[in-house]
């Protein structure tokens, strides 16, 4: 990452540095200054991209809604008013109407954000480390270890993700945890590929040889010196994959294999609204808009992160 040199403006005034100049200095005095400076440059490039900012705002909103669901939701997400409030059209009382159980759809969407976030975070936490470990070990070790690990990765990469997730959930039984496991098992291979490519690039560099000469064990080299370098491209890829994860989870929910009723999972909500699509279309429409918005947010954010952190592929 030698982006610092290109973007640093010539020093304007001698003497006291402004905060911006301190950040952009091409002779950082400390490690912290260099780190902050690099973060600042990345942030500047990210913030120039208006669409990426919109994506960031959408995702921040999702997180806030999920945290404060109890305060934001006007009604209970699971207990509805069966007597008086079945399948109401959107109105002042119920902004997005009610479903067939008399439950407020807006409240269900608000609580559903927790499930969406739960799935996304859990899949990322399971799949990314697996991919990182397989990729870095394979890239650093080389030889037969590399051949075997990459063969396994290729096998998983060649599988149809959704169908495999379906079969897995069919065997494990429906439920949100099993959906997470199924999605995670099918989504780590691209991360392994990326981590391996990054590892191959740095593994013969001088600083790795230096660390090796100082007596660092392979485990330490991989953990402390190679993995951190793979992080930025991995984060970009994981963010870009989030939309796909959300869509797969919603698809499983739609087929009745994800979160089980009465959990307000967005895909399952579309499935239950399907029966009333002809007359009460808002029951199925509203959760779809929520899924679309959040996936869009992750896609925009991922695109922006890629352009900011990886200038090589910018604009493609």
């Amino acid at each position, binding site marked *: 990452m030698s982006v610092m040199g290109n973007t640093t403006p010539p020093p304007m005034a001698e003497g006291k540095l402004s905060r911006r100049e301190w950040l952009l200095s091409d002779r950082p005095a400390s490690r912290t200054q260099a780190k902050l400076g690099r973060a600042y440059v990345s942030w500047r490039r990210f913030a120039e991209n208006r669409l990426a900012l919109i994506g960031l705002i959408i995702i921040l909103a999702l997180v806030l809604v999920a945290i404060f669901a109890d305060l934001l939701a006007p009604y209970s997400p699971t207990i509805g008013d069966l007597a008086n409030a079945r399948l109401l059209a959107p109105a002042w009382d119920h902004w997005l109407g009610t479903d067939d159980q008399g439950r407020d759809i807006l409240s269900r969407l608000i609580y559903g954000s927790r499930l969406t976030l739960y799935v996304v975070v859990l899949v990322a936490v399971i799949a990314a480390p697996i991919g990182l470990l397989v990729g870095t070990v394979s890239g650093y070790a080389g030889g037969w270890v590399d051949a075997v690990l990459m*063969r*396994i990765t*290729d*096998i*998983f990469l*060649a*599988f*149809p*993700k*959704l*169908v*495999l997730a*379906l*079969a*897995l959930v*069919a*065997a*494990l039984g429906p439920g949100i945890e099993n959906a997470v496991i199924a999605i995670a098992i099918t989504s780590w291979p691209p991360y392994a590929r990326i981590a391996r490519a990054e590892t191959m690039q740095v593994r013969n560099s001088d600083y790795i040889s230096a660390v090796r000469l100082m007596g660092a064990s392979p485990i330490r080299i991989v953990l402390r010196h190679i993995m951190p370098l793979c992080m930025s491209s991995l984060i970009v890829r994981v963010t870009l994959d989030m*939309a*796909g994860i959300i*869509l797969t989870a*919603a*698809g499983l929910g*739609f*087929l*009745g*294999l994800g979160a089980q009723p009465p959990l307000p999972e967005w*895909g399952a909500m*579309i499935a239950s609204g*399907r029966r009333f*699509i*002809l007359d009460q*279309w808002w029951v*199925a*429409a509203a*959760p*779809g808009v929520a*899924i*679309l918005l959040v*996936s*869009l947010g*992750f*896609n*925009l954010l991922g695109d922006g992160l890629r352009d900011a952190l990886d200038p090589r592929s910018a*604009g*493609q």
Partner: protein
Amino acid sequence: MSVASDTQPAPRGRRARSLVKSLLSFLVVVVVTYLGLLAVTFFIGRVIPVDPVLAIVGDRAPANVVERTREELGFNEPLTTQFVIYVQKALSGDFGRSVLTTNPVMTDIKRVFPATIELATLGTILGAVLGIPLGVLAAVRRGGWLDQIVRIIGLVGYSVPIFWLGLLALLVFYARLQWVGGPGRIDVVYEYTFTPITGFYLLDAIIQRDWSAFNNILSHLALPSLLLGYFSLAYISRMTRSFMLNELSQEYIVAARAKGLSERRIVWRHALRNAAVPLVTVIALSYAGLLEGSVLTETVFAWPGLGLYITNSLQNADMNAVLGGTIVIGSVFIAINLLSDLLYRLLDPRTRAR
């Protein structure tokens, strides 16, 4: 090593040997990948369930039936022997019987698969025919309004749940506007007059010159194939744009301009032809993706294809049918993946030297 063979042509013997070698390694990849697929489905079907026999015969089956099935299916053997038997059976197309339809799973799949192929093929054709020109134009006028549109199409295509879009499309174009046929492949009226021959209904109607059935089939196909076409379009146009941007920045384009070739010729003849090689891979991958995406689309449109077969079997805990369908879709998926890889190597002279 590749540099040397680039500059001076290798002797014929060595080239033939390297071709044989790469073909052999390709074969190894094919075999290993298929074995991997079978191992995973074996694992899903036999190892994860507490008692796979109960999963097949159902938990209300009498004890002697359970015991007999266990014996017949070889479940008393060690796992490795079971796996060998499993692979042998799968290779001969024997996935067991479906509990739901009582047919052998393979017979069922043969019956439903043409519907899925028909839909995915039409979707891919739509996506490629519209997506490639769109992507090329977006790359030529980078930053222009068409480029923005392609960007939006791509973003929405990557973000929208396909089943939801399908439901809304059914609501608007079938229920409200009545422009197209509804769920299913053909109206009930035709059930008795129309006889499927190949299973590809459009072809069947043409063979029988049954034009009223043809129109009806087309109106049923319109929505799901346009929907799949849209997703294919989103992917293909985005990739075309990025390949074309890459080609247009190459030096041979500058040379062609200096030679005085027309811009149109440069873009459509020179740049696109070079971008075409990776595009073949992209189209193949998008086709494979549509085959897989059929699971959700077919559920929404009640399209009697493999996807609907799998989901119906899922809901009835019909594990043989689910795994059989998974193996078939997985096999086609892998085959397309590997074939596109092979095609890429054959079409692109740069990869041949290696």
